[in-house]
C-alpha cells in the first residue's frame, strides 16, 4: 500500500512504491531485475491490457518497485505511455527512478525535465555509460546533478555498475524543486490554473503544464478529482489564453524546455570531434535558415536531379536497357526460348511483346533498377548526413508559415514513408470523419519516396523544365491538400522533431548498406507486381481486350488529356503500382510516341494515382469495401482532372 506523501519533504523510509520510468529500450527491465531480483508480479494495469511488473526492492522489501512501460514524452501517444502517466497521476509514489540513455543525453533530459517538474523525489540513472564512453561522450554528471537539483548516478545496468549507488541514494532521497522559467503567458496561466487544481500526487505546476500541453490523461484525472464544472472553468481559461497567442501553448512549453536543455547539455556534455562539430553546427544552422536553407535545398534538389535524372535515368538506363538488354540479352534469350519452346503462345508469354522477360523483367531490371539505385544512394547520403531531418524542419516551417496546422499535416511533412503504413496510423485520429479524410488525403497526395524517385528520374532524363513543372504541380496539389486537411481536421500540430541530429560526413558503408537493403525491399515488392501486370497485359492482348480498353479510354485519355489512345493501357497498369504505369509511359516517350508536354501531363496524372494495390487493400481493411471504392474513384477523378487542366495550361503557354 502507498503511505507516503511525495511533497512532504521526508526521506524514503518505511513502505511504499517507486516507479522505474524511461524511454523504451534504455535498460529499465535490466535495472529492475538488478534492484529487485525477487518474485515479480506481472499484471495488467487496471482498465487496460498493458502489463506492469512489480516486485519488492532487494534491500528494502517493504518498498515495491514498479517497472512502467517505456515513454518517449508526455502527452502520451500510445496505450503503453498512457499507462505510465496514469500510474504517475494515480499512485502516491515515494520516488521515481528515471532510466536514461547516456548516449542520447539531450533526449533523456527532455523527459527528465518533465519528471522533475512533478516534484516527486527522483533519481536519474544515466544508463549505458560504457557505450557512451566508447563513443567519446563525456558527461559531467555532478555538475548536471547540481543544476537539476537531483541525484544522478552513471550506470551500466547490464554489468551491475551503479546499481548499489541507486539503492543507497533511494534511502535518502528528497523531493525535487526544478522550476524552468517559461514565458510570462505560461507562468501566468500556471499560477491561475494552480488555484483550481486539487492536490495531486504530482505538483500543481506540473499538472497545469500537462493540461496546457493538451494532455488527455491529466484532463481525465481532473474530471475525476475536480469535477466537470471545474474542468469547464479551466477550459475557458485555456481557450481565452490561446486566443492571444499565435503559437500553441504546448509549442511554447516545448520550445522553452528545448532551449533549456540545449543550454544545459552544452554546459555538461563533451563529445569527441568538437572541431568538426563547430563546422557541422554552422552548416546545420544554414540548412534550416529561412533564406539560405531554401537555396541549399534547391542546390541539393538540382544535384539529385542530375544524379538520378541525367546519370541514373539517362546514362545508366541507356547502358542497361538499350545496350545490355536491347542489343544483347533480349535477342539472345528470345532466340533461345523460341528454339526450345516451339509453342508460340508459351514463348510469347516469356519473350513476346508482353512477355514476362522482355517486358516485366526488362522494366524492373533495365529501367527501374538504375533509377532507384541512384535515388536510394542520394537518399542515403541525405539521411546519413543529417540533412533529411533539416529538410523536414524547413518544409515544416514553410507549411506553418502559410497557415498549415493540424494533426493531418504531419503525414505530409513526413511524406516520404509508405502510404500503406500511413493509412494504418490514421487510427490515432479521434473521429471516424477525421480518419476517413486523412485516409483519402494520404491516398491522393502523399508521395511514396521510391515511386516519386522513379517518376522524377524518368522526367529528369527528358528535361529540367519538365521535371520542374511536374514538381511544381505535385507540390501545388500537396499544398492544396494540406490546406484542406488543416481546415477539415483542425487541431494542434504534433511536434515533428524533438531534436535535430548533428550534421556529419556520410559514412560510405552506412549509405551503401542502406541502399542495398532498400533495393532488396523495393525489388521484392516491385518485381512480382511487374510480372503480374505483364501477365495481365499478355492475357488482355491475346483476348483482343487491349484494343478495346484503348477505345474505351480514348475520350478520357485522348480527348481530355490529349495523349495517344495506347496510354490507356499504362494508366490501367498504374492501378497495380503507379511506377509500373509510369515505366510504360516512359517507354512510349523513348519510342517518340509522346511529346514533352504529353510526358508531363501523363506523369503528373500517374503521380496522383492510387499508389499501389496494397494501399487499396489496407484502405478496405481499415474502412470498408464501399469506402475504398469511393476513394479509388475520387482519386482517379482528381488525377485526371488535374492532368487535363495541366494539358490546357501547357497549351496556353506554348508547350506542345
Amino acid at each position, binding site marked *: 500500500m502507498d503511505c507516503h506523501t511525495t511533497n512532504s519533504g521526508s526521506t524514503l523510509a518505511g513502505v511504499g512504491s517507486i516507479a522505474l520510468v524511461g524511454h*523504451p*529500450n534504455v535498460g529499465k527491465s535490466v535495472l529492475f531485475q538488478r534492484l529487485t531480483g525477487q518474485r515479480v508480479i506481472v499484471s495488467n494495469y487496471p482498465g487496460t491490457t498493458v502489463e506492469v511488473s512489480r516486485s519488492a526492492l532487494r534491500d528494502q522489501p517493504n518498498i515495491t518497485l514498479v517497472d512502467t512501460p517505456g515513454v*518517449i514524452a508526455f502527452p502520451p501517444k*500510445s496505450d503503453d505511455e498512457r499507462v505510465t502517466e496514469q500510474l504517475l497521476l494515480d499512485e502516491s509514489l515515494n520516488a521515481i527512478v528515471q532510466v536514461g*540513455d547516456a*548516449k*542520447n543525453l539531450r*533526449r533523456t533530459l527532455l523527459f527528465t525535465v518533465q519528471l522533475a517538474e512533478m516534484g516527486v523525489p527522483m533519481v536519474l540513472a544515466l544508463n549505458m555509460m560504457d557505450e557512451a564512453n566508447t563513443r567519446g561522450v563525456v558527461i559531467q554528471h555532478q555538475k548536471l546533478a547540481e543544476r537539476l537539483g537531483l541525484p544522478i548516478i552513471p550506470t551500466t545496468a547490464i554489468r551491475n555498475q551503479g546499481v548499489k549507488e541507486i539503492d543507497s541514494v533511494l534511502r535518502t532521497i528528497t523531493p525535487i524543486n526544478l522550476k524552468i522559467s517559461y514565458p510570462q503567458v505560461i507562468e501566468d496561466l500556471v499560477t491561475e490554473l494552480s488555484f483550481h487544481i486539487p492536490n495531486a500526487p504530482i505538483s500543481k505546476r506540473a499538472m497545469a503544464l500537462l493540461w496546457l500541453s493538451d494532455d488527455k490523461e491529466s484532463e481525465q484525472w481532473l474530471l475525476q478529482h475536480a469535477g466537470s464544472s471545474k474542468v469547464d472553468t479551466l477550459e475557458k481559461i485555456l481557450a481565452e489564453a490561446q486566443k492571444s497567442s499565435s503559437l500553441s501553448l504546448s509549442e511554447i512549453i516545448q520550445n522553452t524546455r528545448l532551449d533549456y536543455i540545449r543550454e544545459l547539455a552544452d554546459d555538461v556534455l563533451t563529445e569527441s570531434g568538437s572541431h568538426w562539430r563547430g563546422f557541422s553546427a554552422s552548416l546545420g544552422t544554414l540548412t534550416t535558415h529561412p533564406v539560405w536553407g531554401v537555396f541549399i535545398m534547391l542546390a541539393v534538389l538540382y544535384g539529385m536531379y542530375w544524379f538520378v535524372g541525367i546519370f541514373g535515368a539517362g546514362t545508366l538506363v541507356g547502358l542497361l536497357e538499350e545496350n545490355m538488354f536491347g542489343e544483347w540479352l533480349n535477342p539472345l534469350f528470345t532466340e533461345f526460348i523460341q528454339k526450345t519452346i516451339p509453342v508460340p503462345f508459351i514463348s510469347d508469354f516469356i519473350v513476346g511483346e508482353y512477355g514476362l522477360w522482355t517486358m516485366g523483367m526488362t522494366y524492373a531490371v533495365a529501367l527501374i533498377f538504375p533509377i532507384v539505385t541512384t535515388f536510394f544512394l542520394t537518399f542515403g547520403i541525405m*539521411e*546519413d548526413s543529417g540533412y*533529411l*531531418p533539416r529538410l*523536414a524542419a524547413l518544409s515544416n516551417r514553410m507549411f506553418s508559415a502559410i497557415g498549415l496546422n493540424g494533426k493531418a499535416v*504531419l*503525414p505530409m511533412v*513526413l511524406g*516520404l*514513408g*509508405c502510404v*500503406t*503504413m500511413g493509412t*494504418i*496510423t490514421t487510427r490515432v485520429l479521434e473521429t471516424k470523419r477525421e480518419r476517413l479524410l486523412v485516409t483519402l488525403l494520404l491516398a491522393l497526395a502523399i508521395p511514396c519516396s521510391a515511386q516519386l524517385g522513379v517518376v522524377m528520374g524518368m522526367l529528369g532524363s527528358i528535361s529540367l523544365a519538365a521535371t520542374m513543372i511536374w514538381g511544381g504541380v505535385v507540390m501545388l496539389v500537396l499544398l492544396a491538400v494540406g490546406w484542406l486537411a488543416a481546415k477539415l481536421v483542425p487541431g494542434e500540430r504534433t511536434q*515533428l*522533431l*524533438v*531534436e*535535430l*541530429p548533428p550534421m556529419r560526413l556520410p559514412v560510405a558503408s552506412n549509405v*551503401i*548498406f*542502406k541502399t*542495398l*537493403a*532498400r*533495393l*532488396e*525491399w523495393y525489388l*521484392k*515488392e516491385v518485381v512480382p507486381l511487374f510480372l503480374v501486370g505483364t501477365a495481365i497485359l499478355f492475357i488482355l492482348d491475346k483476348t483482343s481486350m487491349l484494343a478495346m480498353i484503348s477505345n474505351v479510354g480514348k475520350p478520357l485519355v485522348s480527348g481530355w488529356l490529349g495523349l495517344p489512345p495506347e496510354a490507356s493501357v499504362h494508366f490501367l497498369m498504374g492501378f497495380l503500382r503507379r511506377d509500373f504505369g509510369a515505366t510504360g509511359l516512359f517507354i512510349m516517350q523513348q519510342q517518340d510516341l509522346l511529346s514533352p508536354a504529353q510526358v508531363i501531363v501523363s506523369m503528373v496524372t500517374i503521380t496522383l494515382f492510387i499508389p499501389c494495390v*496494397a494501399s487499396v*487493400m*489496407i484502405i478496405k*481493411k481499415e474502412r470498408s469495401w464501399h469506402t475504398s471504392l469511393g476513394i479509388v474513384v475520387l482519386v482517379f477523378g482528381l488525377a485526371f482532372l488535374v492532368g487535363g487542366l495541366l494539358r490546357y495550361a501547357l497549351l496556353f503557354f506554348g508547350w506542345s
Partner: protein
Amino acid sequence: MTEISCSMCGFIFDPSAYLRCTECPIKKGCQLSCCPNCGYETVDIEQSSLVRFTSRLISIFASGEK
C-alpha cells in the same frame, strides 16, 4: 537486441519491440521499421540478405588481403 537509429529524428530503438507493422499487408520481406518517436520509416539493414551477403563478401576479401 538490434538497435537502429531513426534517420529523421535520431531516436535509437529496437525495431522488434514495436509491432505496428504486424497489420501491414506487405510486411512479408519488408525491411522498413517505423520510428516510435516521429513515425518516419527507417530501413533495418539487419533484415537484408543482400547486406548480409555483401558483408560476408567484404570480410572474405578483407581476410584474403591479410
